């Protein structure tokens, strides 16, 4: 509700509105810098202020060239192009597989007769509690022994596993709201557990499935530490790992190309956020507030 008193309303609104506009301008300033700098040549970047356009070359054409350089790379090192596809695989397959396995588990935990369901829940939930550092060394040596190190399969498995715990947590909450009577009557009608799951639970689960996909896709796409630990070659490293590598050798592709690559690397998650902003907002409430709706 609106709490500003009527008499002073306009006056206050102008002040508060000015504050928030300045705030947003300050917040967007780093992003503005990135866009402006990504449209410069290397010489233009050095000779102009970071937030000012440089017109020694056509900025639009230069922007395009920087993107190509960032994606394709130079002779000495390849760009982030292949990693874009890798991360698309990791984020999509990882998120979807995790949602499928987690929904099966959440269904069993919430509606089927299982002894020690709280223990099973704790086992599955424990994956959300600890810092990723606790998993790195054994997974690294395990992947090396099994030949999964530096493969797409290895990273997909790791990403799937790390996504499962939160999916179980959220879906279990969701399924607890399904009336028990529906499950019982389906069972009396002769439906198997799998049929009940497929015909009743899955159609009912689309909202949390979408929310989970958005969050887990974003998480995997933006992950850095798994990417640099479990993959080394450019054929399997995910995008953020390669982008960080591109920055380390900026003298090679040039700062403008690094920043253009950063823009390209951010596109999928930014587009998802803009398109599904309300789902993200609601999802955050669930993630941090624990309410199921």
């Amino acid at each position: 509700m609106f709490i500003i008193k009527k008499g002073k309303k306009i006056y206050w609104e102008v002040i508060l509105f000015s504050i928030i506009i300045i705030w947003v301008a300050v917040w967007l300033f780093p992003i503005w810098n990135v866009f402006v700098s990504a449209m410069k040549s290397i010489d233009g970047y050095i000779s102009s202020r970071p937030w000012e356009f440089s017109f020694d070359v056509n900025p639009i054409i230069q922007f395009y060239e920087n993107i190509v350089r960032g994606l394709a790379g130079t002779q000495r090192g390849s760009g982030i192009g292949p990693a874009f596809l890798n991360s698309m695989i990791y984020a999509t397959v990882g998120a979807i597989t995790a949602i499928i396995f987690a929904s099966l588990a959440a269904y069993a935990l919430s509606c089927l007769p299982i002894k020690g369901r709280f223990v099973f829940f704790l086992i599955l939930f424990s994956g959300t509690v600890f810092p990723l550092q606790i998993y790195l060394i054994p997974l690294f040596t395990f992947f090396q022994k099994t030949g999964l190190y530096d493969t797409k399969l290895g990273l997909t498995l790791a990403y799937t596993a790390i996504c499962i715990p939160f999916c179980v947590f959220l879906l279990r909450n969701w399924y607890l709201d399904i009336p028990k009577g529906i499950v019982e009557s389906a069972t009396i009608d002769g439906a198997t557990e799998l049929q009940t799951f497929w015909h009743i639970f899955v159609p009912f689960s689309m909202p949390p499935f979408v929310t989970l996909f958005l969050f887990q896709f974003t998480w995997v796409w933006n992950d850095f530490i798994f990417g640099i630990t479990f993959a080394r070659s450019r054929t399997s490293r995910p995008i953020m790992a390669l982008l960080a590598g591109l920055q380390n050798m900026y003298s090679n592709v040039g700062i403008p190309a690094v920043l253009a690559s950063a823009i390209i690397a951010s596109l999928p998650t930014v587009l998802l956020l803009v398109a599904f902003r309300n789902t993200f907002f609601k999802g955050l409430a669930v993630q941090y507030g624990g309410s199921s709706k």
Partner: protein
Amino acid sequence: MTVVKKIKPYIFLIPALVFVILFLIYPAVHTIIVSFMEWNGISKPQWIGFDNYVHMLQDPAFWIAFRNTILWVIGSILIPVTLGLIAALLIYMLPGQKTIKLLLFLPYALSGVVISIMWSYMYRLDGAINGILKIIGFVENIKPWLQVVPANTFAMIITNGWRMTGTNMVLFSIGMQAIPDEPIEAAYIEGSSNWQIMTRVIIPMMASTTAVVVIMAIINGFNVFDIVWVMTEGGPYRSSATLAVNMYRESFVIFKFGRGAANAVTLSLLVFVAAIFYMRVIFKKSRIGE
């Protein structure tokens, strides 16, 4: 009931359990075991008891990282939580500002690597921050921010503030939307000022949201890795490292897995203490007993 029927429900748990046990629980337990060993990943592991922990606690680099991590935790509470609350209040008082909300929330979609790249160029000697300082007349304050101690840690904490403010704003906004109108109306009719309504009605009713946001900020502060690793690699001379960065360096730069594991276990214990509070809040809200 036949045996088959009894077993059937457990089959639904198997895929998720296999993944979680194989890729998360077993590694976590194994890390604890490795923390009592000397091991480089190739040689045969040697059981050395608490030596890794003793070495860690005697290492000045550990205490520098510990101090930095505490700074990160404090900074993660002070900057983005406070700013997030203020931003949420502003948006609460100016309804219909969905675009503003989205713009402040935008950093959520950006990865730690992208944010670090953006800001590390801004902090360079020829970067935007020094450019602004020059314009507004603070020429003597110009420095390569990421190479000077302790400015580098504070600079990265500010970057993290930029990143997390929008997330916290959304969480506070959700909390504020849940506040019923009646207490605010009652205070309004009794003649309370805007300031009184804000400080005595709205903010106190935000207590449980604030608790969650602060706990999450603490956990994120402990866990910070991407920003530090990309912006400074913990340098110069390990001056800006955090516990998470030290763990990575010990394990995957110099391949002392035992010491890396000891760092990982220490970090996990610290995070776990904070996570207990988090779990108490969300378990209560999500009916875990059922």
